[in-house]
């Protein structure tokens, strides 16, 4: 499955990333390599094999650990806003969105 430069551009756009022309060419080639590899994997007979949802988990699944519904203390407001480039009136402040 060939990938076009336009598709790479669109994916970059969705991720809000901007690349130089050279970088785009580089990614297009890398994407193509990945897709080719996937294409090879697709030829493997997986009849009867359970789909792997998580690469980090055994197929039979580590149990999801539940947390009990107990409210805990949150960060102080100043700390929560501490890393924000702009904050005012107890809020994060961003360029106008609507």
């Amino acid at each position, binding site marked *: 499955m060939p990938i076009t430069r336009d598709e790479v551009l*669109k994916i970059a*756009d*969705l*991720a*809000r990333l901007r690349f130089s022309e050279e970088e785009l060419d580089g990614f297009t080639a890398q994407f193509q390599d990945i897709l080719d590899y996937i294409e090879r994997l697709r030829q493997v007979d997986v009849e009867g094999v359970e789909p792997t*949802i*998580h*690469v*980090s*988990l055994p197929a039979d*699944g*580590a*149990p*999801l*650990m*539940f*947390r*009990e*519904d*107990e*409210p*805990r*203390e*949150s*960060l*102080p*407001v100043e700390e*929560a*806003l501490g*890393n924000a480039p*702009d904050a*005012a*009136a*107890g*809020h*994060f*402040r*961003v*360029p*106008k*969105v*609507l």
Partner: protein
Amino acid sequence: MTFEPAIGLEVHAQLLTGSKLFCGCSTRFGAPPNSQTCPVCLGLPGALPAINRQAVTMAVKAALALGCRVNPVSVFARKNYFYPDMPRGYQISQFDLPLGEHGSIAVFSGERTDGGKIVNRREKTFGITRLHMEDDAGKSIHDGLPETETKSYVNLNRTGVPLVEIVSAPDFRSSQEAYDFVVHLRKTLLYLGVCDGNMEEGSLRCDANVSVRPKGTAALGTKVEIKNLNSFRFMQRALDYEIERQKRVLSGGGRVVQETRLWDESEGRTFSMRSKEEAHDYRYFPEPDLPPLRLDPEWIAGVAAELPELPGARMKRFMSDYALGADDALLLTSTAATAAYFEECARESANPRAAANWVMGDLARALKNSGGEIEESPVTARELAALIRTIDSGEISGKIAKTVFEEMVRTGEPAVDLIGRMGLRQVSDEASLVAVIDKVIAANPKQLEEYRSGKTRVIAYFVGQVMKETRGQANPRMVNELLERKLAGGST
């Protein structure tokens, strides 16, 4: 050509947990901005989600109540988009494998006349395509703060609050069906105690997909999504507007454009919301920070066994047990508390019809006037039942009962005490009634003459006079009987 609409709804319901879906921050509404955040819900690097057990239980309850099959394995997925109120850059939702699927609910739905009356209420079944869990985004504020011409403000208290998204099938053929469905859905969630249903605080939010097609065709038309439906009434108005708009477009030979439109309540119309073309490309993929959600089928069966009686079932039971019509049963099951109040009153009074009338009539009015909920009613179900019994036993008349009820609402005193203290007990004692009647007849010879000459309708005048003399406390049935005998010239 006649067109018919096909409407589907997407309802987001906030689950009534004390803490967020993936972290321990409080979900309390109205806290100071950004005072309920932590590294997890702020999306800080390295923070990992840990799922709230109670949220999962509530979502399973909702799925079961909506007739969904609860998947033994469901998978969380990242829904990627950028917006300031979603600091992680993705929402943790479910995609391929949602918690619940293939459900349906039966709703008593009617047709709305031009006068706005609902008629022909009957049971209709609507499909629930899926129910999945996800976390909420924060709140953006665009006005009321400094420099909002160029800046927006973000409050992340709501970020990470647990939601279920419930997606209906495109089964509604009128705005009234969609309205009845969403009212029933809200009621169900309230009965389950999994959502407070408060639309003003955003605990329940609703989007609609609307298309129209020539009647009789199978394929659905191009759909338009409508957002900003902040109340059920708004939703119904928006749907009516949009259905008519699409019919006009199609009748004029045009084509409906697939888009998202916003409802503007003040202008009473929907308008196109320019959406970026990639808006729907969310690049879902399985959430690597959360293993699949595995639920033990036995545990699911246990949750199912403990579901309370749901509004649909309760409504039908009321109709058969108490011989109520659909409209009355619908009103009396509007909240679990109303239904419980009615049942207690019906049982204690042994007069379900009277109990229904009082609950829907005088009690509803009194609560509306005081702005109170039935849970805090100054008149308990037991006391209302006692009042009904005094009417049924002939102790007081229905008319006097209204006065007693008003006093009960005002003072919270039991009916029997009030009737005694106010001297309102109905006079059913024949001797004292005869004395009054004799006096009235003696004082009105002209009317007596008329009666005896054949104008028997004049008896109403005598009844009125007797009632006046007894301050309304005479037993009306006895007054009538005694008067007929006396006026006819009989002796007693």
